[in-house]
Protein backbone atom coordinates (compact mmCIF):
# COMPACT_ATOMS: atom_id res chain seq x y z
CA UNK A 1 0.00 0.00 0.00
CA UNK A 2 3.09 2.11 0.65
CA UNK A 3 3.55 4.34 -2.39
CA UNK A 4 0.23 6.16 -2.38
CA UNK A 5 0.74 8.76 0.31
CA UNK A 6 4.16 8.01 1.71
CA UNK A 7 6.35 10.41 -0.23
CA UNK A 8 4.29 13.58 0.11
CA UNK A 9 4.79 15.51 3.30
CA UNK A 10 1.42 17.27 3.56
CA UNK A 11 -1.56 15.93 5.42
CA UNK A 12 -3.81 15.85 2.32
CA UNK A 13 -2.56 12.55 0.88
CA UNK A 14 -2.57 11.08 4.37
CA UNK A 15 -6.27 11.87 4.73
CA UNK A 16 -7.23 10.28 1.40
CA UNK A 17 -4.99 7.44 2.38
CA UNK A 18 -6.98 7.03 5.58
CA UNK A 19 -10.29 7.19 3.73
CA UNK A 20 -9.05 4.66 1.24
CA UNK A 21 -7.95 2.32 4.00
CA UNK A 22 -11.27 2.66 5.82
CA UNK A 23 -13.24 2.10 2.60
CA UNK A 24 -11.23 -0.97 1.70
CA UNK A 25 -11.47 -2.31 5.23
CA UNK A 26 -15.26 -1.89 5.10
CA UNK A 27 -15.44 -3.60 1.72
CA UNK A 28 -13.10 -6.47 2.52
CA UNK A 29 -15.63 -8.75 4.23
CA UNK A 30 -18.42 -7.74 1.85
CA UNK A 31 -17.99 -9.37 -1.60
CA UNK A 32 -21.45 -8.27 -2.75
CA UNK A 33 -20.69 -4.64 -1.95
CA UNK A 34 -17.31 -4.90 -3.68
CA UNK A 35 -18.94 -6.13 -6.87
CA UNK A 36 -21.73 -3.56 -6.82
CA UNK A 37 -19.28 -0.71 -6.20
CA UNK A 38 -17.70 -1.60 -9.52
CA UNK A 39 -21.01 -2.25 -11.25
CA UNK A 40 -22.90 0.80 -9.98
CA UNK A 41 -21.78 3.60 -12.34
CA UNK A 42 -22.20 1.65 -15.56
CA UNK A 43 -25.38 -0.05 -14.40
CA UNK A 44 -26.97 3.27 -13.47
CA UNK A 45 -26.07 4.66 -16.90
CA UNK A 46 -27.61 1.65 -18.65
CA UNK A 47 -30.74 1.81 -16.49
CA UNK A 48 -31.11 5.53 -17.10
CA UNK A 49 -30.33 5.55 -20.81
CA UNK A 50 -31.39 2.13 -22.02
CA UNK A 51 -33.94 0.50 -19.70
CA UNK A 52 -35.96 3.59 -18.71
CA UNK A 53 -36.14 4.89 -22.30
CA UNK A 54 -37.53 1.53 -23.45
CA UNK A 55 -40.08 1.63 -20.61
CA UNK A 56 -41.08 5.21 -21.48
CA UNK A 57 -41.37 4.17 -25.13
CA UNK A 58 -43.72 1.32 -24.13
CA UNK A 59 -45.78 3.78 -22.13
CA UNK A 60 -46.00 6.12 -25.14
CA UNK A 61 -47.23 3.23 -27.29
CA UNK A 62 -50.41 2.88 -25.22
CA UNK A 63 -51.22 6.60 -25.02
CA UNK A 64 -53.37 8.69 -27.37
CA UNK A 65 -51.58 10.56 -30.13
CA UNK A 66 -50.78 14.22 -29.54
CA UNK A 67 -51.73 16.74 -32.19
CA UNK A 68 -48.21 17.97 -33.03
CA UNK A 69 -46.25 14.82 -32.23
CA UNK A 70 -45.83 13.57 -28.70
CA UNK A 71 -48.73 12.08 -26.75
CA UNK A 72 -51.77 13.12 -24.75
CA UNK A 73 -52.53 11.63 -21.35
CA UNK A 74 -54.77 8.57 -21.36
CA UNK A 75 -54.72 4.90 -22.26
CA UNK A 76 -55.50 3.26 -25.59
CA UNK A 77 -54.45 0.19 -27.53
CA UNK A 78 -55.20 1.93 -30.81
CA UNK A 79 -51.54 1.82 -31.94
CA UNK A 80 -51.45 -1.96 -31.62
CA UNK A 81 -54.82 -2.62 -33.26
CA UNK A 82 -53.72 -0.36 -36.11
CA UNK A 83 -50.82 -2.70 -36.69
CA UNK A 84 -53.29 -5.43 -37.67
CA UNK A 85 -54.22 -3.46 -40.79
CA UNK A 86 -53.07 -5.32 -43.95
CA UNK A 87 -50.74 -2.45 -44.94
CA UNK A 88 -48.68 -2.89 -41.79
CA UNK A 89 -48.89 -6.66 -41.75
CA UNK A 90 -47.42 -6.57 -45.26
CA UNK A 91 -44.51 -4.48 -43.98
CA UNK A 92 -43.98 -6.99 -41.17
CA UNK A 93 -44.11 -9.87 -43.63
CA UNK A 94 -41.70 -8.15 -46.04
CA UNK A 95 -39.23 -7.38 -43.26
CA UNK A 96 -39.33 -10.98 -42.14
CA UNK A 97 -38.93 -12.33 -45.69
CA UNK A 98 -35.97 -10.05 -46.43
CA UNK A 99 -34.27 -10.96 -43.14
CA UNK A 100 -34.74 -14.68 -43.83
CA UNK A 101 -33.48 -14.32 -47.42
CA UNK A 102 -30.43 -12.36 -46.23
CA UNK A 103 -29.66 -15.02 -43.63
CA UNK A 104 -29.98 -17.88 -46.14
CA UNK A 105 -27.80 -16.13 -48.74
CA UNK A 106 -25.18 -15.25 -46.14
CA UNK A 107 -25.13 -18.87 -44.93
CA UNK A 108 -24.80 -20.22 -48.50
CA UNK A 109 -21.97 -17.82 -49.32
CA UNK A 110 -20.38 -17.57 -45.88
CA UNK A 111 -20.05 -21.26 -45.06
CA UNK A 112 -17.82 -22.16 -48.03
CA UNK A 113 -15.74 -19.04 -47.42
CA UNK A 114 -15.26 -19.91 -43.75
CA UNK A 115 -14.48 -23.53 -44.67
CA UNK A 116 -11.81 -22.47 -47.14
CA UNK A 117 -10.24 -20.02 -44.69
CA UNK A 118 -10.16 -22.63 -41.90
CA UNK A 119 -8.24 -25.01 -44.21
CA UNK A 120 -6.06 -22.47 -45.99
CA UNK A 121 -2.89 -23.04 -43.97
CA UNK A 122 -0.48 -20.14 -44.24
CA UNK A 123 -3.01 -17.97 -46.08
CA UNK A 124 -5.32 -18.07 -43.13
CA UNK A 125 -4.47 -14.84 -41.33
CA UNK A 126 -4.48 -12.81 -44.54
CA UNK A 127 -7.88 -14.17 -45.61
CA UNK A 128 -9.28 -13.64 -42.14
CA UNK A 129 -8.06 -10.06 -42.23
CA UNK A 130 -9.87 -9.58 -45.56
CA UNK A 131 -13.11 -10.78 -43.94
CA UNK A 132 -12.73 -8.58 -40.88
CA UNK A 133 -11.74 -5.42 -42.75
CA UNK A 134 -15.21 -4.49 -44.10
CA UNK A 135 -16.57 -5.00 -40.58
CA UNK A 136 -14.48 -2.01 -39.50
CA UNK A 137 -15.37 0.09 -42.52
CA UNK A 138 -18.17 2.59 -42.02
CA UNK A 139 -21.55 1.03 -42.85
CA UNK A 140 -22.73 4.30 -44.34
CA UNK A 141 -19.69 4.45 -46.63
CA UNK A 142 -20.25 0.85 -47.72
CA UNK A 143 -23.91 1.50 -48.42
CA UNK A 144 -22.98 4.54 -50.48
CA UNK A 145 -20.49 2.35 -52.36
CA UNK A 146 -23.40 0.09 -53.34
CA UNK A 147 -25.35 3.10 -54.65
CA UNK A 148 -22.31 4.14 -56.64
CA UNK A 149 -22.23 0.72 -58.30
CA UNK A 150 -25.94 0.10 -58.75
CA UNK A 151 -27.61 3.35 -59.71
CA UNK A 152 -28.85 3.84 -63.29
CA UNK A 153 -25.82 5.95 -64.15
CA UNK A 154 -23.65 3.83 -61.89
CA UNK A 155 -20.63 1.78 -62.67
CA UNK A 156 -22.29 -1.57 -63.41
CA UNK A 157 -24.75 -0.07 -65.87
CA UNK A 158 -22.22 2.14 -67.59
CA UNK A 159 -19.73 -0.70 -67.98
CA UNK A 160 -22.37 -3.10 -69.30
CA UNK A 161 -23.55 -0.46 -71.74
CA UNK A 162 -20.02 0.40 -72.82
CA UNK A 163 -19.38 -3.28 -73.41
CA UNK A 164 -22.48 -3.41 -75.59
CA UNK A 165 -24.26 -5.94 -73.38
CA UNK A 166 -27.02 -3.49 -72.47
CA UNK A 167 -28.84 -0.90 -74.55
CA UNK A 168 -30.53 0.79 -71.64
CA UNK A 169 -29.59 0.78 -67.99
CA UNK A 170 -31.35 -1.84 -65.87
CA UNK A 171 -32.91 -0.42 -62.73
CA UNK A 172 -31.21 -2.01 -59.73
CA UNK A 173 -31.42 0.73 -57.14
CA UNK A 174 -34.69 1.15 -55.23
CA UNK A 175 -35.70 -2.46 -55.79
CA UNK A 176 -35.93 -5.37 -53.32
CA UNK A 177 -32.86 -6.78 -55.07
CA UNK A 178 -30.80 -3.74 -54.05
CA UNK A 179 -31.89 -4.03 -50.42
CA UNK A 180 -31.07 -7.74 -50.36
CA UNK A 181 -27.68 -7.17 -52.02
CA UNK A 182 -26.90 -4.37 -49.56
CA UNK A 183 -27.81 -6.49 -46.54
CA UNK A 184 -25.83 -9.55 -47.71
CA UNK A 185 -22.86 -7.32 -48.50
CA UNK A 186 -23.19 -5.62 -45.12
CA UNK A 187 -23.58 -8.66 -42.90
CA UNK A 188 -21.60 -11.46 -44.60
CA UNK A 189 -18.66 -11.09 -42.14
CA UNK A 190 -21.06 -11.82 -39.27
CA UNK A 191 -21.68 -15.25 -40.83
CA UNK A 192 -18.11 -16.06 -41.81
CA UNK A 193 -16.49 -15.33 -38.44
CA UNK A 194 -18.52 -17.64 -36.13
CA UNK A 195 -18.56 -20.46 -38.72
CA UNK A 196 -14.80 -20.09 -39.08
CA UNK A 197 -14.39 -20.19 -35.29
CA UNK A 198 -16.27 -23.48 -35.01
CA UNK A 199 -14.52 -25.06 -38.01
CA UNK A 200 -11.15 -24.02 -36.67
CA UNK A 201 -11.82 -25.84 -33.38
CA UNK A 202 -12.76 -29.03 -35.24
CA UNK A 203 -10.35 -31.84 -34.40
CA UNK A 204 -8.78 -33.12 -37.69
CA UNK A 205 -8.36 -36.59 -36.19
CA UNK A 206 -12.16 -37.01 -36.29
CA UNK A 207 -12.06 -36.59 -40.06
CA UNK A 208 -9.14 -39.00 -40.30
CA UNK A 209 -11.08 -41.52 -38.24
CA UNK A 210 -14.06 -41.16 -40.57
CA UNK A 211 -11.78 -41.66 -43.56
CA UNK A 212 -10.18 -44.76 -42.06
CA UNK A 213 -13.65 -46.11 -41.43
CA UNK A 214 -14.42 -45.72 -45.12
CA UNK A 215 -16.47 -42.52 -45.30
CA UNK A 216 -16.18 -40.74 -48.64
CA UNK A 217 -15.50 -36.95 -48.69
CA UNK A 218 -19.20 -36.07 -49.08
CA UNK A 219 -20.17 -38.33 -46.19
CA UNK A 220 -17.32 -36.98 -44.05
CA UNK A 221 -18.58 -33.46 -44.62
CA UNK A 222 -22.24 -34.30 -44.03
CA UNK A 223 -21.74 -36.56 -40.98
CA UNK A 224 -18.74 -34.97 -39.25
CA UNK A 225 -17.88 -31.44 -40.37
CA UNK A 226 -21.39 -30.06 -40.78
CA UNK A 227 -22.82 -31.27 -37.43
CA UNK A 228 -19.72 -30.12 -35.56
CA UNK A 229 -19.80 -26.67 -37.13
CA UNK A 230 -23.56 -26.31 -36.59
CA UNK A 231 -23.15 -24.12 -33.47
CA UNK A 232 -21.12 -21.62 -35.48
CA UNK A 233 -23.60 -21.71 -38.34
CA UNK A 234 -26.56 -21.15 -36.00
CA UNK A 235 -24.75 -18.30 -34.24
CA UNK A 236 -23.91 -16.78 -37.63
CA UNK A 237 -27.56 -17.01 -38.69
CA UNK A 238 -28.60 -15.14 -35.54
CA UNK A 239 -25.92 -12.49 -36.02
CA UNK A 240 -27.13 -11.87 -39.58
CA UNK A 241 -30.86 -12.25 -38.95
CA UNK A 242 -31.05 -9.76 -36.07
CA UNK A 243 -29.51 -6.71 -37.75
CA UNK A 244 -31.37 -7.53 -40.99
CA UNK A 245 -34.67 -7.53 -39.13
CA UNK A 246 -33.93 -4.15 -37.58
CA UNK A 247 -32.17 -2.64 -40.58
CA UNK A 248 -32.95 0.93 -41.40
CA UNK A 249 -30.14 2.51 -43.36
CA UNK A 250 -29.91 -0.13 -46.11
CA UNK A 251 -33.59 -0.06 -47.01
CA UNK A 252 -33.67 3.71 -46.56
CA UNK A 253 -30.88 4.36 -49.07
CA UNK A 254 -31.10 1.37 -51.42
CA UNK A 255 -34.81 0.58 -51.31
CA UNK A 256 -37.56 2.75 -52.69
CA UNK A 257 -40.76 3.75 -50.97
CA UNK A 258 -42.22 0.37 -51.93
CA UNK A 259 -39.53 -1.47 -49.99
CA UNK A 260 -40.47 -0.04 -46.58
CA UNK A 261 -39.31 -2.22 -43.69
CA UNK A 262 -40.31 -2.00 -40.01
CA UNK A 263 -37.25 0.10 -39.21
CA UNK A 264 -38.30 2.67 -41.81
CA UNK A 265 -41.91 2.58 -40.62
CA UNK A 266 -40.73 3.43 -37.09
CA UNK A 267 -38.59 6.29 -38.32
CA UNK A 268 -41.40 7.67 -40.51
CA UNK A 269 -43.77 7.85 -37.57
CA UNK A 270 -41.36 10.12 -35.75
CA UNK A 271 -40.18 12.25 -38.66
CA UNK A 272 -43.02 12.85 -41.12
CA UNK A 273 -46.16 11.12 -39.84
CA UNK A 274 -45.78 12.47 -36.30
CA UNK A 275 -47.62 9.55 -34.78
CA UNK A 276 -45.47 8.81 -31.76
CA UNK A 277 -47.68 6.13 -30.17
CA UNK A 278 -47.78 4.13 -33.41
CA UNK A 279 -44.03 4.55 -33.92
CA UNK A 280 -43.40 3.45 -30.34
CA UNK A 281 -45.66 0.42 -30.80
CA UNK A 282 -43.90 -0.58 -34.04
CA UNK A 283 -40.55 -0.10 -32.35
CA UNK A 284 -41.62 -2.22 -29.39
CA UNK A 285 -42.89 -4.99 -31.70
CA UNK A 286 -39.55 -4.93 -33.54
CA UNK A 287 -37.69 -5.28 -30.25
CA UNK A 288 -39.90 -8.23 -29.23
CA UNK A 289 -39.24 -9.95 -32.58
CA UNK A 290 -35.50 -9.60 -32.07
CA UNK A 291 -35.60 -10.87 -28.50
CA UNK A 292 -37.81 -13.75 -29.72
CA UNK A 293 -35.14 -14.66 -32.28
CA UNK A 294 -32.50 -14.63 -29.53
CA UNK A 295 -34.64 -16.90 -27.32
CA UNK A 296 -35.12 -19.37 -30.19
CA UNK A 297 -31.36 -19.31 -30.68
CA UNK A 298 -30.73 -20.04 -27.01
CA UNK A 299 -33.09 -23.04 -27.32
CA UNK A 300 -31.41 -24.33 -30.49
CA UNK A 301 -27.91 -23.89 -29.18
CA UNK A 302 -26.36 -27.18 -28.06
CA UNK A 303 -25.57 -27.23 -24.34
CA UNK A 304 -21.81 -27.70 -24.80
CA UNK A 305 -21.41 -24.20 -26.21
CA UNK A 306 -22.87 -22.72 -23.06
CA UNK A 307 -20.62 -19.67 -22.99
CA UNK A 308 -20.16 -16.99 -25.60
CA UNK A 309 -21.44 -17.13 -29.15
Amino acid at each position, binding site marked *: *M*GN*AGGSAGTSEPARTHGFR*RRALAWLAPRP*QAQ*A*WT*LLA*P*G*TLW*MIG*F*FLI*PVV*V*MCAYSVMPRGEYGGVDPGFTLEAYTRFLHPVYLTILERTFAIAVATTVLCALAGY*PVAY*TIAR*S*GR*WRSLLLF*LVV*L*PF*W*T*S*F*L*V*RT*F*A*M*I*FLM*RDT*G*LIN*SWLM*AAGILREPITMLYTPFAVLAGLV*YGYLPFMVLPVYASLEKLDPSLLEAAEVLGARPAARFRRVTLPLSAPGLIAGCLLVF*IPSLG*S*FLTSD*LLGGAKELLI*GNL*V*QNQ*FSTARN*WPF*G*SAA*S*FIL*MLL*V*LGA*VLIYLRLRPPDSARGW
Partner: protein
Amino acid sequence: MGTSGIGKLPRWLVAFTAACLFLMHLPVLVLVAFSFNSSKFAVTWTGFTFGWYRRLLERDDILHAVQASLIVGVTATAIAVALGTLIALALARHRFRGRTVYEGMMYVPIVTPEIVTGISLLVLFVFLRLPLGLTTIIIAHVAFCVPFVVVVVVARLAGMDENLEEAAMTLGADEITTFFRITLPLLWPGILSAALLAFILSFDDFVITSLVAGSGSSTLPLVIYSMVRRNVEPSINAISTLIVIATSILLYASDRMSRRNEPANA
Protein backbone atom coordinates in the same frame (compact mmCIF):
# COMPACT_ATOMS: atom_id res chain seq x y z
CA MET B 1 -1.42 -27.45 -39.55
CA GLY B 2 0.85 -29.54 -41.75
CA THR B 3 -2.03 -31.55 -43.18
CA SER B 4 -4.05 -28.58 -44.34
CA GLY B 5 -3.28 -26.24 -47.16
CA ILE B 6 -5.11 -24.30 -49.77
CA GLY B 7 -3.78 -26.66 -52.45
CA LYS B 8 -5.73 -29.61 -51.03
CA LEU B 9 -9.08 -27.89 -51.33
CA PRO B 10 -11.34 -28.38 -54.36
CA ARG B 11 -10.67 -25.77 -57.04
CA TRP B 12 -14.26 -24.53 -57.17
CA LEU B 13 -14.23 -23.86 -53.44
CA VAL B 14 -11.09 -21.75 -53.66
CA ALA B 15 -12.47 -19.90 -56.68
CA PHE B 16 -15.78 -19.27 -54.93
CA THR B 17 -14.04 -17.92 -51.82
CA ALA B 18 -11.79 -15.69 -53.90
CA ALA B 19 -14.85 -14.33 -55.75
CA CYS B 20 -16.72 -13.65 -52.49
CA LEU B 21 -13.76 -11.87 -50.92
CA PHE B 22 -13.25 -9.86 -54.11
CA LEU B 23 -16.93 -8.81 -54.17
CA MET B 24 -16.76 -7.88 -50.48
CA HIS B 25 -14.08 -5.32 -51.28
CA LEU B 26 -14.97 -4.25 -54.79
CA PRO B 27 -17.53 -1.54 -53.90
CA VAL B 28 -15.21 0.34 -51.54
CA LEU B 29 -12.22 -0.05 -53.87
CA VAL B 30 -14.23 1.42 -56.75
CA LEU B 31 -15.41 4.22 -54.50
CA VAL B 32 -11.83 5.07 -53.53
CA ALA B 33 -10.58 4.91 -57.13
CA PHE B 34 -13.28 7.26 -58.38
CA SER B 35 -12.55 9.84 -55.69
CA PHE B 36 -9.57 10.77 -57.87
CA ASN B 37 -11.58 10.97 -61.08
CA SER B 38 -11.85 14.41 -62.59
CA SER B 39 -15.29 13.89 -64.14
CA LYS B 40 -18.21 15.16 -62.14
CA PHE B 41 -20.41 12.41 -63.50
CA ALA B 42 -18.16 9.81 -62.04
CA VAL B 43 -18.88 6.90 -64.36
CA THR B 44 -16.07 7.16 -66.83
CA TRP B 45 -12.46 7.83 -66.05
CA THR B 46 -11.46 11.21 -67.42
CA GLY B 47 -8.27 11.93 -65.55
CA PHE B 48 -6.60 12.07 -62.16
CA THR B 49 -7.38 14.89 -59.72
CA PHE B 50 -7.20 15.86 -56.08
CA GLY B 51 -9.93 18.41 -56.74
CA TRP B 52 -12.66 16.65 -54.75
CA TYR B 53 -10.43 16.60 -51.69
CA ARG B 54 -9.73 20.29 -52.09
CA ARG B 55 -13.46 20.87 -52.33
CA LEU B 56 -13.92 19.20 -48.94
CA LEU B 57 -11.65 21.72 -47.26
CA GLU B 58 -13.81 24.55 -48.58
CA ARG B 59 -16.91 23.17 -46.95
CA ASP B 60 -17.40 24.51 -43.44
CA ASP B 61 -20.21 22.08 -42.68
CA ILE B 62 -17.88 19.12 -43.19
CA LEU B 63 -15.11 20.59 -41.07
CA HIS B 64 -17.58 21.36 -38.29
CA ALA B 65 -19.02 17.87 -38.55
CA VAL B 66 -15.58 16.30 -38.26
CA GLN B 67 -14.97 18.40 -35.17
CA ALA B 68 -18.32 17.39 -33.65
CA SER B 69 -17.67 13.72 -34.43
CA LEU B 70 -14.26 13.85 -32.77
CA ILE B 71 -15.64 15.57 -29.65
CA VAL B 72 -18.47 13.05 -29.38
CA GLY B 73 -16.23 10.07 -30.20
CA VAL B 74 -13.49 10.91 -27.70
CA THR B 75 -15.86 11.87 -24.85
CA ALA B 76 -18.20 8.92 -25.34
CA THR B 77 -15.29 6.50 -25.66
CA ALA B 78 -13.64 7.76 -22.47
CA ILE B 79 -16.85 7.47 -20.44
CA ALA B 80 -17.88 4.13 -21.95
CA VAL B 81 -14.45 2.59 -21.42
CA ALA B 82 -14.37 3.70 -17.77
CA LEU B 83 -17.87 2.41 -17.00
CA GLY B 84 -17.49 -0.75 -19.06
CA THR B 85 -14.11 -1.72 -17.60
CA LEU B 86 -15.47 -1.46 -14.06
CA ILE B 87 -18.40 -3.70 -14.97
CA ALA B 88 -16.04 -6.15 -16.67
CA LEU B 89 -13.84 -6.29 -13.55
CA ALA B 90 -16.87 -7.09 -11.41
CA LEU B 91 -18.03 -9.79 -13.83
CA ALA B 92 -14.64 -11.43 -14.21
CA ARG B 93 -13.20 -11.07 -10.72
CA HIS B 94 -16.13 -11.03 -8.30
CA ARG B 95 -18.90 -13.42 -7.41
CA PHE B 96 -22.19 -11.67 -6.77
CA ARG B 97 -25.84 -12.63 -6.75
CA GLY B 98 -27.47 -12.42 -10.15
CA ARG B 99 -24.15 -12.46 -12.02
CA THR B 100 -25.32 -14.83 -14.76
CA VAL B 101 -28.47 -12.80 -15.30
CA TYR B 102 -26.41 -9.59 -15.38
CA GLU B 103 -24.08 -11.07 -17.98
CA GLY B 104 -27.04 -12.08 -20.12
CA MET B 105 -28.67 -8.66 -19.78
CA MET B 106 -25.47 -7.09 -21.13
CA TYR B 107 -26.33 -8.57 -24.54
CA VAL B 108 -29.81 -7.04 -24.70
CA PRO B 109 -28.59 -3.56 -25.76
CA ILE B 110 -26.22 -5.20 -28.27
CA VAL B 111 -28.97 -7.12 -30.05
CA THR B 112 -31.56 -4.34 -29.85
CA PRO B 113 -31.95 -2.69 -33.27
CA GLU B 114 -30.37 0.76 -33.43
CA ILE B 115 -33.63 2.30 -34.54
CA VAL B 116 -35.31 1.05 -31.33
CA THR B 117 -32.51 2.35 -29.10
CA GLY B 118 -32.58 5.68 -30.90
CA ILE B 119 -36.34 6.14 -30.78
CA SER B 120 -36.55 5.22 -27.10
CA LEU B 121 -33.80 7.72 -26.24
CA LEU B 122 -35.50 10.40 -28.32
CA VAL B 123 -38.76 9.76 -26.46
CA LEU B 124 -36.94 9.98 -23.12
CA PHE B 125 -35.10 13.20 -23.98
CA VAL B 126 -38.29 14.84 -25.17
CA PHE B 127 -40.14 13.59 -22.10
CA LEU B 128 -37.42 15.09 -19.87
CA ARG B 129 -37.38 18.25 -22.02
CA LEU B 130 -33.62 17.91 -22.51
CA PRO B 131 -32.49 20.06 -25.45
CA LEU B 132 -31.16 17.83 -28.25
CA GLY B 133 -27.52 18.43 -29.16
CA LEU B 134 -24.00 17.19 -28.56
CA THR B 135 -24.79 16.24 -24.95
CA THR B 136 -27.67 13.97 -25.91
CA ILE B 137 -25.55 12.43 -28.68
CA ILE B 138 -22.78 11.67 -26.18
CA ILE B 139 -25.25 10.17 -23.67
CA ALA B 140 -26.69 7.92 -26.38
CA HIS B 141 -23.27 6.85 -27.68
CA VAL B 142 -22.05 5.91 -24.20
CA ALA B 143 -25.20 3.81 -23.73
CA PHE B 144 -24.61 1.75 -26.87
CA CYS B 145 -20.84 1.47 -26.41
CA VAL B 146 -20.72 0.25 -22.78
CA PRO B 147 -21.89 -3.34 -23.50
CA PHE B 148 -19.30 -3.74 -26.28
CA VAL B 149 -16.55 -2.51 -23.95
CA VAL B 150 -17.69 -5.01 -21.31
CA VAL B 151 -17.59 -7.92 -23.76
CA VAL B 152 -14.09 -7.06 -25.03
CA VAL B 153 -12.58 -6.40 -21.59
CA VAL B 154 -14.18 -9.50 -20.00
CA ALA B 155 -12.59 -11.61 -22.75
CA ARG B 156 -9.19 -10.10 -22.01
CA LEU B 157 -9.59 -10.56 -18.23
CA ALA B 158 -10.56 -14.21 -18.73
CA GLY B 159 -7.19 -14.85 -20.37
CA MET B 160 -5.21 -13.09 -17.62
CA ASP B 161 -3.30 -14.83 -14.86
CA GLU B 162 -5.01 -14.11 -11.54
CA ASN B 163 -1.97 -15.37 -9.63
CA LEU B 164 -0.09 -12.13 -10.30
CA GLU B 165 -2.82 -10.12 -8.58
CA GLU B 166 -2.88 -12.55 -5.67
CA ALA B 167 0.91 -12.35 -5.38
CA ALA B 168 0.75 -8.55 -5.17
CA MET B 169 -1.89 -8.74 -2.45
CA THR B 170 0.12 -11.32 -0.55
CA LEU B 171 3.10 -8.97 -0.72
CA GLY B 172 1.03 -6.30 1.02
CA ALA B 173 -0.51 -4.23 -1.78
CA ASP B 174 -4.16 -3.28 -1.24
CA GLU B 175 -6.84 -3.70 -3.92
CA ILE B 176 -6.38 -0.23 -5.40
CA THR B 177 -2.57 -0.43 -5.61
CA THR B 178 -2.85 -3.92 -7.09
CA PHE B 179 -5.32 -2.62 -9.65
CA PHE B 180 -3.12 0.26 -10.81
CA ARG B 181 0.21 -1.56 -10.68
CA ILE B 182 -0.73 -5.08 -11.82
CA THR B 183 -4.22 -5.41 -13.30
CA LEU B 184 -4.34 -2.21 -15.33
CA PRO B 185 -0.95 -2.60 -17.07
CA LEU B 186 -1.83 -6.20 -17.99
CA LEU B 187 -5.31 -5.21 -19.08
CA TRP B 188 -4.13 -2.28 -21.20
CA PRO B 189 -4.29 -4.03 -24.61
CA GLY B 190 -7.86 -5.14 -23.88
CA ILE B 191 -8.87 -1.64 -22.83
CA LEU B 192 -7.22 -0.24 -25.93
CA SER B 193 -9.09 -2.52 -28.30
CA ALA B 194 -12.32 -1.81 -26.42
CA ALA B 195 -11.65 1.92 -26.80
CA LEU B 196 -10.96 1.51 -30.50
CA LEU B 197 -14.19 -0.43 -30.99
CA ALA B 198 -16.16 2.17 -29.01
CA PHE B 199 -14.62 5.05 -30.94
CA ILE B 200 -15.33 3.50 -34.32
CA LEU B 201 -18.90 2.60 -33.31
CA SER B 202 -19.42 6.17 -32.17
CA PHE B 203 -17.69 7.81 -35.11
CA ASP B 204 -19.64 5.69 -37.59
CA ASP B 205 -23.08 5.80 -36.01
CA PHE B 206 -25.81 7.28 -38.12
CA VAL B 207 -29.16 5.83 -37.05
CA ILE B 208 -29.15 6.67 -33.32
CA THR B 209 -27.31 9.96 -33.79
CA SER B 210 -29.76 11.19 -36.42
CA LEU B 211 -32.62 10.69 -33.94
CA VAL B 212 -31.06 12.38 -30.91
CA ALA B 213 -29.02 15.10 -32.63
CA GLY B 214 -31.65 17.80 -32.97
CA SER B 215 -31.25 20.34 -35.73
CA GLY B 216 -28.21 22.30 -34.60
CA SER B 217 -25.48 19.71 -34.30
CA SER B 218 -24.37 17.40 -37.08
CA THR B 219 -21.78 14.68 -36.85
CA LEU B 220 -19.94 13.49 -39.95
CA PRO B 221 -22.26 10.55 -40.79
CA LEU B 222 -25.23 12.95 -40.69
CA VAL B 223 -23.58 15.28 -43.20
CA ILE B 224 -22.55 12.37 -45.43
CA TYR B 225 -26.08 11.00 -45.32
CA SER B 226 -27.55 14.29 -46.46
CA MET B 227 -24.93 14.48 -49.23
CA VAL B 228 -25.82 10.95 -50.37
CA ARG B 229 -29.50 11.83 -50.28
CA ARG B 230 -29.12 15.07 -52.16
CA ASN B 231 -26.67 14.09 -54.78
CA VAL B 232 -23.84 12.16 -56.12
CA GLU B 233 -20.95 14.48 -56.52
CA PRO B 234 -17.56 12.82 -56.06
CA SER B 235 -16.82 14.78 -52.86
CA ILE B 236 -18.65 11.95 -51.08
CA ASN B 237 -16.15 9.52 -52.57
CA ALA B 238 -13.35 11.71 -51.25
CA ILE B 239 -14.71 11.96 -47.71
CA SER B 240 -15.48 8.21 -47.74
CA THR B 241 -11.91 7.49 -48.79
CA LEU B 242 -10.57 9.62 -45.96
CA ILE B 243 -12.75 7.73 -43.46
CA VAL B 244 -11.55 4.38 -44.80
CA ILE B 245 -7.90 5.51 -44.56
CA ALA B 246 -8.34 6.94 -41.05
CA THR B 247 -9.99 3.71 -39.85
CA SER B 248 -7.21 1.60 -41.34
CA ILE B 249 -4.54 3.71 -39.62
CA LEU B 250 -6.36 3.42 -36.28
CA LEU B 251 -6.70 -0.36 -36.68
CA TYR B 252 -3.07 -0.77 -37.64
CA ALA B 253 -1.88 1.39 -34.73
CA SER B 254 -4.00 -0.46 -32.21
CA ASP B 255 -2.83 -3.82 -33.56
CA ARG B 256 0.81 -2.74 -33.20
CA MET B 257 0.30 -1.40 -29.70
CA SER B 258 -1.60 -4.39 -28.38
CA ARG B 259 1.02 -6.72 -29.84
CA ARG B 260 3.82 -4.84 -28.12
CA ASN B 261 2.07 -5.13 -24.78
CA GLU B 262 0.89 -8.69 -25.27
CA PRO B 263 2.42 -11.14 -22.81
CA ALA B 264 4.27 -13.95 -24.57
CA ASN B 265 1.68 -16.60 -23.74
CA ALA B 266 -1.42 -14.75 -24.91
